[in-house]
């Protein structure tokens, strides 16, 4: 059931987004894990198209917000507007009140706006001037961002990054994939041609099944040891947070479910570690400035090589 469910979603997305199956699967993992996803890549690598296609094929309510430097928090969460007729203030819901919010180019907005998302992403609710409203379920933020070296971008604060369950790097396509993209574009493939392939009941059932996936005590211990190893690594100034490890566990359960299993294996954990942890770890500044060629992915690989999984 689950592998077929996954295949349906990936095939439908593939109708307009060429050669992005792994990325589509990671979005599905993030949704089923009850999380949020950050898509990073240079302009023009189908980040926005992938997010739109993914939302459409699940038949969920979808909204898109283009983040800009002049945005205000109320542009996202909403605010109180004076109703002249009723002569009272009423709460007008912002675009976050949806199932899937595409926060396009999130790092073009100033930190104040990015922070407005914190409560919504973590607690699935919004509080404005003491008034709290729950967000619809499921609720997922898919944010896209350009690499930090690009002009006019604000780095996302650590607290914000930690709320993104997964970061998905979208690199350039290969030569063959590029040709396939050009062919698809010429044939007029459009996101409007994507139809829902999963019913609301199926999706609700999938969420329940993910919750039923077993994670053994030894596996939890393994995940905790991975976290400790990132914190103990001298090359890292900020290791994995407990929230990161909760996300890793949830994602591993989702991957197990999509693989047709009701238990998590160390391979599930290892395959997701880079996506779940790389955006949360910070390299030691002194090391970064020393010119030594070390990156977070290499640090994570060393950690995974060192920590013994249950066998």
């Amino acid at each position: 059931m689950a592998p077929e469910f996954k295949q349906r979603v990936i095939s439908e997305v593939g109708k307009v987004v060429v050669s992005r199956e792994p990325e589509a699967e990671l979005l599905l993992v993030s949704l089923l894990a009850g999380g949020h996803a950050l898509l990073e890549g240079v302009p023009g690598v189908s980040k926005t198209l992938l997010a739109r296609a993914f939302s459409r094929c699940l038949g969920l309510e979808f909204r898109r917000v283009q983040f800009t430097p002049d945005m205000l928090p109320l542009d996202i969460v909403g605010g109180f507007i004076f109703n002249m007729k009723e002569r009272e203030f009423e709460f007008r819901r912002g675009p976050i009140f949806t199932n899937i919010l595409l926060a396009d180019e999130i790092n073009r907005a100033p930190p104040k706006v990015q922070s407005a998302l914190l409560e919504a992403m973590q607690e699935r609710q919004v509080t404005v001037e003491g008034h709290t409203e729950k967000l619809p379920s499921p609720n997922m933020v898919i944010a896209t961002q350009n690499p930090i070296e690009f002009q006019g971008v604000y780095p996302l604060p650590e607290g914000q990054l930690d709320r993104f369950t997964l970061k998905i790097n979208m690199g350039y396509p290969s030569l063959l994939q590029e040709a396939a993209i050009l062919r698809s574009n010429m044939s007029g493939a459009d996101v409007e041609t994507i139809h829902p392939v999963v019913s609301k009941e199926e999706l609700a059932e999938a969420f329940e099944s993910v919750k039923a996936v077993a994670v053994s005590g030894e596996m939890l211990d393994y995940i905790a040891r991975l976290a400790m190893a990132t914190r103990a690594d001298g090359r890292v100034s900020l290791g994995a947070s407990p929230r990161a490890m909760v996300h890793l566990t949830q994602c591993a359960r989702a991957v197990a479910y999509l693989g047709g299993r009701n238990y998590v294996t160390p391979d599930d954990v290892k395959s997701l570690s880079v996506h779940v942890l790389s955006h949360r770890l910070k390299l030691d500044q002194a090391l970064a400035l020393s010119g030594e060629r070390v990156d977070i992915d290499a640090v994570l690989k060393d950690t995974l090589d060192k920590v013994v999984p249950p066998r």
Partner: protein
Amino acid sequence: MQLDFLLLVIFNVVAYASLAAALASWLKERPRGGSPRDVAAAFGMLEQALRRAFPDLPEGFTWREGIAEARKRGVRLNWTALDGALRSYEAYRYGREPAPTTSPQPDLLKLLKLLGGPR
């Protein structure tokens, strides 16, 4: 005369003790014939065999990574059958399935033998 007898006794004790120690060591290290008694024992032996056969394998290797290493080296086996055996062992080891009661899958034993056999 008594001193000679005492020296002889000491010599015998030392000689037989050395012999016993060498025998014990050989018994401990000798290659053990026969098959592992169950699937869990077979995987336990496979872990050691993989470590011996592929010293470059990192400490944090998983079953699938270890077996993939053997596959990369061109070991000829029915990998689909072996994958099935691993999957049912994982369901027991990491899931809530009962321990497999059947004897170890033949390709698992073959791999064990190809990697240098159980010790």
